């Protein structure tokens, strides 16, 4: 692995997506600001903007750096350079995870402080709220993996729609689980086995998906 080339590939993709990503981050931050200023009055609106900003901050870079690279026929240019498929794949994973990860992390921390803070939702909501945040990350990783493997628009769009619906169903199902439901409105955050187990399982799924995708991708023999 040539680290210098990996760095150049990551920087190249970052330069291509940095403006929209910063705009989405600003939108997410604005949502949190709305929640601070207007409190419960605009709570739903700020939450919707927040989730939308998070999702779009993930989807746009994936489509721009992976799917569009093939559909816009940039791949013959990139792969004609002395770049291994391993460096190419690592660069895509790094830039996308770093971009989404930083947006997700900063907005998640801010939202946790605001939504589950002194004047926000009851503290008992905290575990469930964390499950929602990690679920968003899992959905993002599935989308990233589908895009990396297929590099085409159709499956990537289908994946994003299915993940969107699937994530909502999953969250509803989790909210309906007794160990979660029973503590959700309480004044204290209770991290029981169910909530911790779900988060640990989701993190394991993230790790597994990324490892499997990189493994499969680096075995590709045709690049255009």
């Amino acid at each position, binding site marked *: 692995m040539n680290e210098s080339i990996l760095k150049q590939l990551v920087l190249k993709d970052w330069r291509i997506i940095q403006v929209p990503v910063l705009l989405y981050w600003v939108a997410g931050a604005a949502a949190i600001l709305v929640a601070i200023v207007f409190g419960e009055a605009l709570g739903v609106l700020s939450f919707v903007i927040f989730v939308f900003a998070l999702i779009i901050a993930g989807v746009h870079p994936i489509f721009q750096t992976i799917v569009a690279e093939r559909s816009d026929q940039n791949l013959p*240019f990139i792969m*004609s350079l002395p770049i291994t498929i391993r460096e190419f794949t690592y660069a895509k994973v790094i830039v996308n995870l770093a971009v989404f990860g930083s947006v997700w992390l900063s907005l998640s921390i801010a939202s946790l402080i605001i939504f589950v803070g002194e004047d926000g939702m009851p503290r008992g909501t905290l575990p469930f709220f964390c499950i929602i945040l990690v679920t968003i990350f899992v959905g993002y990783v599935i989308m990233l993996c589908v895009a990396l493997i297929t590099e085409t628009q159709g499956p990537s769009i289908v994946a994003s729609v299915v993940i969107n619906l699937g994530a909502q169903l999953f969250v509803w199902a989790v909210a309906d689980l007794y160990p979660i439901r029973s503590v959700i409105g309480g004044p204290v955050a209770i991290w029981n086995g169910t909530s911790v187990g779900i988060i640990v399982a989701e993190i394991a799924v993230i790790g597994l998906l990324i490892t499997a995708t990189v493994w499969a991708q680096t075995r590709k023999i*045709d690049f255009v």
Partner: protein
Amino acid sequence: MLDLAIECHGINKHYPHFDLEDIDLQVPAGSAMGFVGPNGAGKSTTMRIIMGLIRQDSGSVNVLHYPIPEQQIAAKRDIGFVSEDMRLYGSRTIGFHMDFVKSIYESWDDRLADDLLSRFDLVREQKVKGLSHGQRVKACLLLALARSPRLLILDEPTTGLDPVARQEIMSEMRKVLQDDSRSILFSSHNTLDVEQISDHIAFILDGRIIDCRDTESFLDSWRRIRLELPDGHHLATGDGVVDLQCSERRTVATTDSFSDQLLTSLKQHGACVKDIERMTLEEIFLARVKSQQELAA
């Protein structure tokens, strides 16, 4: 021993609707090979295999003495590749691409890059999406040339270009060939371009190389011979005659192995040779394709 920039032996690649079969290709170092064939003949597939962009099912490929695809990264450090379907990032400037390629290649030459920018009439700050087709090809060529690769692989670089842009590209290719250590493999529909610049020519049809020779012997061995045959005399194809067009009094024979012996043989068949014409590469190519298709039929 002849130093080869590209050496392919028995390359096969199967697709559901197309097969590349038994491709043998040798490009001597310091020379240019023109790769000629109709659309869908397998030119791009062959070039992509040579570049390691797709893997052959069987057969061996060596580029600059590196086996492909195994050591494609080492080979690509010395190859400049431009293909007709290659696109740069539309939302970015030419300068962005120059900086990116420069960061990959130590051999990038800033002075040469600036010189090419001015010769190609390109502006560093220009966004790629605003470029014409000709400017786009020139930008791709600039990115390939500014690192002085030992081998240029150009897939249809002049297709769709106006005569001025085409000449600019051809002129750059000639400059590359002034250096004896540098080689070019390029495909083109424009046989005039190929004829002008190639030391060797390969014809490809339906996934097979049907002819591969040095340009001079190609042009020297093909002739169109106008004959008059006495009544009752007939000629047939074979023995060097690949095509015959017969009218009432005149017969036009096309040969791919012109020699004094052939003329003697024609005369022995009672033919009176009226005229002998040299053929252009395009005419040779069309005649070769026709004879190949007749053979296949």
